[in-house]
């Protein structure tokens, strides 16, 4: 029996299994063939297409859409995967509204871009449904490469290196590969265990060994990896989280959003996942939106995102903000947490209004209190476990355009490395490009 919305405190089973299934269904379901044909027909086959420039992995978008138009989505998929081996996941999670689709000339012409993301999903799904892996390995080179971190950056690098004939060992501290594809991305973007399926499909190339439960800084050291392998690629993402620095942060019910999302993504039965009646999420990025929306979808009655700056400064795109709003999440701007009240567990959060003078944010002194039996912190992830001796830039491992770190023989990419946005597609691009540079240095 489902517990109602209105039950206070943190409860499992606020919604029925059927409601949960509907709420967590595919955000954008796969096109039917007819829908794909109609959508593909809208592409103008632009010269030196702006969408292609806007894609961090530079997929030849007009080409793959033309292949869908002409009735061979499998070769469209190959066009996509040649540039972006995680094209299936990217089709689901890329904020296309700020990438390829924003650049589409039909966005300029009619405010309605070609739905590139969904077409990409159509093509890649068609190929993967057939269980086909369209790439094969080159002659073995006898070279070995260690990849640390099996997220998008690591998987992308590993696949490219294996394809070029190198033997790759991927280490990850967790028991599953995929990184945030598996543990972070919102459940309604990656349904039916797609992240795990995609990893299994990717590994069909051969030449990649994955070792789970191996952490850099514990079982692994950079020096040992350097000694044992011809090259090392670091793709450990951002393992830490920023602290809130509000009084009462240690009270029960206050958690990191990424931890909650990971738990949600790994839950076998979402009706068993407890959720508060009143949930407040602190932050303004994708993580904040995902934590808030998924709380709502689990059956929370009131969900608020509290962001310390204005709407325009929000990391989440306007599309993501609107998605949150349509799901019933309330967005509050220019408020920062001041204190968390409650006896043992949180009951209320006290927010202070902010104003920015010359770019620096200050509390105005005026506060507001919101009921909160769960508070999620989504105020950014930080680098952790990075080996000593690697130069940093900002708070990330410093790399050049080719992904080289300050230490010879060591490359890095994805969220842990400097440069680029923290997106799945950027991680894939950086992994691929570093692999090409590693290859050049091993063969050259």
């Amino acid at each position, binding site marked *: 029996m489902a517990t109602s919305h209105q039950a206070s405190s943190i409860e499992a089973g606020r919604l029925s299994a059927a409601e949960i299934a509907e709420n967590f269904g595919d955000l954008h379901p796969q096109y039917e063939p007819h829908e794909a044909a*109609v959508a593909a027909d809208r592409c103008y086959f632009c010269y030196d*297409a702006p969408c292609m420039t806007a894609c961090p992995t530079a997929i030849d978008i007009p080409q793959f859409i033309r292949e869908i138009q002409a009735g061979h989505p499998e070769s469209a998929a190959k066009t996509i995967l040649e540039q972006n081996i995680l094209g299936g996941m990217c089709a689901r999670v890329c904020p296309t509204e700020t990438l390829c689709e924003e650049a589409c000339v039909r966005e300029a012409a009619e405010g309605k871009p070609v739905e590139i993301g969904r077409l990409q999903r159509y093509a890649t799904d068609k190929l993967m449904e057939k269980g086909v892996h369209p790439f094969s390995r080159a002659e073995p080179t006898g070279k070995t490469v260690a990849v640390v971190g099996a997220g998008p950056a690591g998987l992308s690098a590993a696949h490219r290196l294996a394809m070029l004939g190198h033997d790759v060992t991927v280490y990850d501290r967790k028991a599953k590969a995929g990184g945030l594809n598996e543990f972070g991305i919102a459940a309604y973007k990656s349904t039916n265990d797609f992240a795990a399926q995609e990893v299994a499909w990717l590994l069909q190339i051969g030449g990649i060994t994955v070792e789970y439960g191996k952490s850099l800084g514990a079982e692994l050291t950079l020096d040992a990896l350097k000694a044992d392998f011809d090259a090392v690629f670091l793709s450990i993402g951002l393992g830490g989280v920023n602290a809130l620095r509000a009084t009462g942060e240690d009270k029960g019910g206050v958690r990191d959003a990424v931890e909650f999302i990971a738990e949600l993504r790994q839950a076998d039965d979402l009706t068993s996942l407890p959720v508060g009646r009143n949930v407040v999420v602190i932050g303004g990025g994708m993580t904040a939106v995902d934590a808030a929306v998924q709380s709502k979808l689990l059956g929370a009655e009131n969900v608020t995102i509290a962001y310390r700056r204005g709407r325009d400064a929000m990391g989440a795109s306007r599309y993501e903000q609107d998605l949150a709003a349509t799901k019933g999440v309330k967005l509050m701007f220019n408020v920062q947490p001041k204190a968390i009240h409650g006896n043992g567990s949180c009951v209320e959060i006290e927010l202070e209004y902010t104003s920015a003078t010359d770019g620096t944010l200050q509390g105005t002194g005026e506060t507001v209190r919101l009921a909160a039996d769960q508070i999620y912190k989504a105020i950014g992830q930080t680098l952790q476990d990075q080996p000593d001796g690697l130069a940093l830039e900002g708070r990330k491992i410093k790399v050049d355009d080719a992904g080289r770190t300050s230490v010879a023989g060591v490359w890095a990419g994805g969220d842990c490395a400097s440069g680029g946005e923290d997106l799945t597609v950027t991680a894939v691009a950086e992994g691929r490009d570093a692999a090409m540079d590693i290859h050049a240095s091993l063969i050259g």
Partner: protein
Amino acid sequence: MADLTADFLGIKSPNPFWLASAPPTDKEYNVRRAFEAGWGGVVWKTLGSEGPPVVNVNGPRYGAIWGADRRLLGLNNIELITDRPLEVNLEEIARVKKDYPDRAIIVSLMVPCEEQAWKDILPRVEATGADGIELNFGCPHGMAERGMGSAVGQVPEYIQMVTEWCKKYYSKPVIVKLTPNITDIRFPARAAKAGGADAVSLINTINSIVSVDLDAMAPEPTIGDKGTHGGYCGPAVKPIALNMVAEIARCPQTHGLPISAIGGVTTWRDAAEFMTMGAGNVQVCTAAMTYGFNVVKEMISGLNQWMDDKGYDTLDDFVGKAVPNVTDWQYLNLNYVAKAKINQDDCIKCGRCFAACEDTSHQAIAMSDDRVFTVKDDECVACNLCVNVCPVEGCITMEQVPAGQIDERTGKVVSDDYANWTTHPNNPASTAAE
């Protein structure tokens, strides 16, 4: 409100939109629905001689090609003439004509090339009260193998002969329907005129194979494991039909011969174009077969609107108006100079004009790093390709370079003298007017 009443060979209809002889006009039921929808007239599906009717294939009889969003652009068929008994058709024609005296009903005929066959059928057609006949000399498949249809239409002597028989045994207007499966459409048109035809109608369908089934390794539509060539029609054939209509309209020997234009008419605009090219009315088949009879409503409202906008009160005000402006290439003014111009406000930066001009034309479009596309007047030959490939209508236009200005491509001052190829110095046969 403009007056759309058409008077074609003395046959009146409330508008110039007739249904062509084809499945839409195959029986009473369809024709009544067509008249209710507003069609001005019909040419009844072609009748054959008395006796057992022809039989059609029992498998697919149509094939097609499509544009974006599966918009049907061309249709192909292997259907024969009516497969219903002559008697039944004649009774139905008489009944419908009685109930719709204000609409045109023309009976399409195809019987063997023997005088007796025509002598037998014509009085029976006359008895139905229908307004005229159309001789189907066009069907390019099936019937042609039996010496009828386009097998007759491709031999001008036969056309003349049969037309003469019809004029002899039938008192009302005789329209000769021409096949486009011929090198020069003026020959059959002249033959029809010589035989005494009151009008020609064109085009019938074009011989075609629309596609091949790559699994069956056979043309489509495929009947079992074989296919055959069929007749092509629909929007794709309009340009071919338009040219053939114009050729007849401007040929001194056939000029003034009434024309009923057929081929790809889909909206009011197609009809208006055919009529300015000399057609007194139009006939429609594929548009009705694709969208149903209600398409005529847009044709009526669109033609009305355009005539009102232009101040044309009756069809006669514009019929044939474009004919004097159809000429031979050799008479085009070589001193007319234009340049493409890209309107930057409308440009959506797709770059298709650039790809087209750079790869396949005259390298006359410049592309900047931030995707601004501009025409290089010193390279542009005004070919119009960029205009044609631009997805935004009206974004690229052809602007005339006024006389007195320099054409940056040739470095010469543009002259407003008319000068064509016949007088051009590069023409070995030049007849320079000295």
